[in-house]
């Protein structure tokens, strides 16, 4: 820790909205002293503790692991707990909830549409467990490497919120769920690959993606859902062609 702490007074503009009582969202402005250790999350917590207890914010791990604190900071998708306010180099910091999800209150959105998509792709290993070893199911590093990046997804829902294809078709599985689908389809321990590929080939599956790359711009973990979707497209096309050439 540095002994000379730089402190600056920053302005926070928070988009407030309580759909039960408010007709329209509105902005509240706050001033707060921040130092080089202040994250957006710490700033919000201090505002709640010292200035306005009515601000609603969701967080859990405070360490960029749980994915519950994603929001828009100055129009960019970020994790509140991982973003240092002084490093933004802005005097005014604008905080808004994730777009395209219904607002529950202020910065807290209802992400059930994202979770529904996630459940639809069966986000767990599927295999004949009767043959499983006593201890963990081992995987060689080369096999893990294929899905390594995809396993880093923390399900924050930023990508789903940013996707133009989700905006035009709310049934579309979306980048987040499809990245998970890629992760399990290409897990060498999984035995459900054929069915998984069939599922993502449905009307609301991978072919809704027009490679607009909004999810890549959005992802605070700098993952690449578009690449995963493009891989699934090719894998599902190959499987379908194989099916036709056999019959």
């Amino acid at each position, binding site marked *: 820790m540095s002994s000379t702490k730089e402190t600056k007074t920053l302005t926070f503009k928070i988009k407030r909205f309580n759909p039960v009582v408010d007709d329209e969202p509105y902005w509240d402005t706050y001033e707060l002293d921040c130092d080089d250790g202040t994250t957006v999350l710490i700033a919000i917590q201090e505002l709640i503790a010292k200035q306005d207890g009515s601000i609603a914010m969701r967080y859990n791990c405070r360490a960029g692991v749980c994915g519950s604190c994603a929001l828009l900071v100055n129009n960019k998708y970020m994790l509140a707990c991982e973003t240092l306010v002084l490093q933004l180099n802005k005097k005014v910091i604008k905080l808004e909830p994730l777009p395209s999800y219904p607002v529950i209150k202020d910065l807290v959105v209802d992400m059930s549409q994202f979770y529904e998509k996630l459940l639809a792709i069966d986000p767990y290993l599927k295999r004949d467990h009767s043959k499983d070893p006593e201890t963990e199911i081992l995987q060689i590093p080369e096999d893990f490497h294929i899905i390594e990046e995809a396993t880093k997804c923390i399900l924050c829902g930023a990508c789903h919120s940013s996707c133009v294809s989700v*905006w035009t078709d709310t049934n579309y599985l979306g980048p987040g769920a499809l990245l998970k689908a890629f992760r399990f389809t290409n897990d060498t321990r999984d035995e459900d690959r054929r069915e998984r590929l069939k599922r993502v080939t449905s009307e609301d599956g991978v072919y809704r993606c027009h490679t607009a*790359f909004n999810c890549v711009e959005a992802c605070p973990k700098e993952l690449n859902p578009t690449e995963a979707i493009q891989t699934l497209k090719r894998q599902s096309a190959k499987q379908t062609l194989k099916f036709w050439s056999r019959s």
Partner: protein
Amino acid sequence: MIKVSETENIVHQSQVETDSHGSKFYRWFKPFSRGIGMYSWLAQRLTGLLLIMYVFIHFGIIGTMLLDTFLGFETPGLLYNSITAAMGSSLVAGMGFPEVVESMLRFSYIIDAGLIAALVYHGYNGIRVVLFDLGIGIRKQKQIFWILLILGIISYILAMYLIMIVPEIVLAGE
């Protein structure tokens, strides 16, 4: 298994159409975290629709070649000839501009300039999208965009030279 209760869904349903960023329509124009990828896709769709519109206008005009014969007029080709003559006339005819400018600002040239711009963009960005479908260059999408844009601009200048300048040179030589 997590199951969202029915009532909860109903309470928030209207908010999906209008989240805290405004209506579903307004959302498209808000500048949050988006880049070349989205704008190039939007332009791809808009130029694609323009090209479809052009195809229909093209069918209509070419169709007039046969229309007057079909309608039993005395002078076959009159309709088509007068349309093409009107298209070939200068926008600044009789306004005292130099002859070169007059001949370059023909109605048909202006339309062709727009059409070729749309086609060149759509074609080159189309190649970019096809590359992604083949799994090529997905992590270099922005660089590929700029490279193809430069190629597109070069092709465009070449095309403009061929349709606007070369005919003038040929005509002048005759």
